[in-house]
């Protein structure tokens, strides 16, 4: 039996009718057309599907949509505000933290959650924060550089 749930997605209230076993990932991608959130391992192991749920990063492939009822969701599509890229997005381009880009949305959101709670993390804290996100292309080197640059508020 479908249930109607309400989500605040990227600041906008959305209503969706969902089966109880549907994941937040599927709702975002299939019902709301927000395909920036990536589906990869679909079992909580790679971080590609990360979104912010009430400000905290979660693997949306592990969250049942009904459990997100009433909560605020931020996806990569919601990172830019009023047409202005989030500093992390800018830095990821400038510092070459993006290769194939498949891990990028998830990593960006984890990085945002980190900087929102800890604006000046150490290198170790950055590594720890993104340790749940697999990136096969970059070896994380430039991802860490980009996050560090934003944290240090460097010109990007």
């Amino acid at each position, binding site marked *: 039996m479908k249930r109607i749930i309400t989500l605040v997605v990227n600041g906008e209230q959305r209503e969706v009718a969902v089966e109880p076993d549907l994941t937040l990932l599927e709702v975002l991608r299939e019902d709301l057309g927000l395909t920036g959130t*990536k*589906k*990869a391992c679909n079992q909580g192991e790679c971080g*590609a599907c990360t979104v912010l749920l009430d400000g905290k990063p979660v693997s949306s492939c592990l969250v049942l949509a009904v459990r997100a009822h009433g909560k605020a969701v931020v996806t990569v599509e919601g990172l830019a505000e009023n047409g202005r890229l989030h500093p992390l997005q800018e830095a990821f381009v400038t510092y070459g933290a993006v290769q194939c*880009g498949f891990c990028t949305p998830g990593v960006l959101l984890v990085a945002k959650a980190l900087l929102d709670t800890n604006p000046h993390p150490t290198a170790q804290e950055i*590594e720890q924060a993104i340790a749940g996100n*697999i990136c*096969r292309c970059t070896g994380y*080197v430039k991802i860490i550089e980009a996050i560090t640059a934003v944290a240090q508020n460097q010109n990007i």
Partner: protein
Amino acid sequence: MNENYSYIGKSLPRNDGLEKVTGRARYTGDLKFPNMLYGKILRSPHAHARIINIDTSEAEKLPGVKCIITAKDVPATKYGLSPARWDETIFCIDKVRYVGDKVGAVAAIDEETAYKALKLIKVDYEVLPAVFDPFEARKEDAPQIFEEYPGNVNTEIHLHFGDVDKAFKDAYYVRTDRLDGQRTYHAFIENHCSIAYWEGDKVTLYSSCQSVHYLQYYLSQVLDMKMGDIRVLKTYLGGGFGGKLDPTGNDFASIIMAKKTGRPVKMSYDQKETFYNGRGRHAQFMEFTTGVTKEGKILGVHGNIVMDGGAYTGLGVASAYYAGSLLTVLYDFDNYKFDCFRYVTNLPPNGAQRGHGQPQPRFAFESHLDHIAEDLGIDPIDIRVINARKPGTTTCNGYEVKSCMLKEANELARDISGWREKKDNLPAFSGIGVGNGGFVSGAGYSMYRNKLPHSTAMIKVMDDGTGAILYTGAVEIGQGSDTVLAQMAAEAMGFPYENIKVVAADTDLATHDFGAYASRQTLMSGWAVKRAGEKVKQQILETAADMMYDRPVTAEELDCREGIVFLKEEPGVTKTFAEVASAYFIKKGPLVGTGSYHPGKLGGAHKGAAVGTSPAYSSATQVAEVKVDEETGEIHVINTWDVHDSGYVINPDLLHGQVHGAFYMGIGESIWEEVLFNDKGELLNGNFGEYRLPTALDMPPVNSIILDSYEPNGPWGVKEVGEGATTPTMGCISNAIYDAIGVRVSSLPISYEKVWRALKEKKGKEGKPQK
């Protein structure tokens, strides 16, 4: 070298960066078409079994199921790389050959229904004995997997150049070492996905693939269709590393089911299925014997390799040749013998993974070379410098190496890593190691016999001259080819980089190119783009010649840079590219330039001589410093250095990104990664939780340095980086660990457990009284 360039030699930001950081970039799995069905592949639960009967009647009754196909519904044409080893069919016909082998497919209104339908299909199997190890496979009484491969021998190679026996006789010292590799997997994050739809008798296939050309070719062969009736394209692609080069079950099945149902069909692999699809690194079992002079100069090498091929061949035959062929490139020696057996086993097929067949033999040889150096009392870097190939030489197996700065790479790596101070002076259980590597800059011959150019490109200037579109068949898989090629187009045309759009990897809309494999695009696609850009520029200059003054000038008196045409003698006299281009358009119609590239005839005449040929070879030295925990065997890679001889570098940041990623993959394969199976051939770790990919916490710093090198065979002097950079890593890590603990863990991955055991054994031995 002329460093006075506008758009190349510069770390311009990627032209797809914005799309990717905003989530707007659509990958194949993000696409939807009206009325689209979802397909899934039916897979074998057995490693080796005869198919007795398939009953789809229950599944067909399930509401929402629209199509079920098995071998009887699809062409039986065999495909693969070399005709003698075409051994794969769309679906298994008589036998299944590994757990996960493809038996049929279902299309339904959603994935869930398709999964349910798979469960309702009844397949009766007669289970056959299976074999999972090449050394078992070669035994006389081993189960035979293919009739056409007696003794399960899939590929057998015996090459001999010079006289190795004589070299060993003349040698001051001869040593043999055996080292083993493991099965690894590309582990790109985006699983394979295909979407097919038909319009009349023409089909369009979106596929997450590394070469639209080869896929179009394979499809036309297997489905018996004209290439012109098949359009293959890809959108954004989430990593490939060699794993998206062979056609997948999704490609064939989506096309066939879309035809049968008259609806678009989308098929995605889940994570486990991408592991089933396989095509990753072969496990190689390698024995090297080398004879050297007292000074460490290599006189002759004999390589003897056994490979676990898995169930089918695909690109695996090339992997086997690559395993031995490229060994001759880095070090200069005249006598070389290579023997290799690739056996089929009842496991997922192995194929090409970053560096193709070479990284494991390179690991073995680099480890072996360190032992030789140690026995002779020579420093490991010194022995590499002594043997490093010189530019402008030809290998004993017939490869012409125009540029080579391996010697300089070793010397610089030595200096920047503090090698001299550290070697033999580090505390106990700390170590430093070196490894060399390199790769072809594109394969000299294409994957099937043809006379086609390897790359072509076309540039069309917009009617008003304010923009240009670069059409290329090169495939952007994350490495940055769209960016690098746009930089090259801009430079060749004298036109702003930001005003160039790229239309790539679409057999209808873009131009022909063999695609992303063998590290070929910067050099080969680059040549085509450069030539296309220069033709556009020439036409601009000719048109401008009548426009500059009241008197006409000649095109030779003009140049064009950054969108401005100017008189070379009087740079103040200018016209914009746009005004000249629009004048051209008004007079003659579209302003188009095309370019094409073929490497010409390369290499010797012996069997297999084609594999390993290339217009150019990269080289690189890596050094790593490690610390090993004596109690637990845990390995910490503390710092690493990479010095690269990559020719002229179009985009340094992208190059460093390739080095980081290559090092990352290499470190994973050195210490953690291995695809595992149980004794029934079932995958044990086909997921990112248990297939141990390094995380950000495991990744050491990488100091990546580019040498100032120039390759005469490359456009502007370029050569490759993407694959070569992964080839030194395993040897380098292996040597660093050896330096730290004083015993060689002779098999990959050099896991904590193996290190711990090796240390324990060593202690045991040391504890025993001397005889």
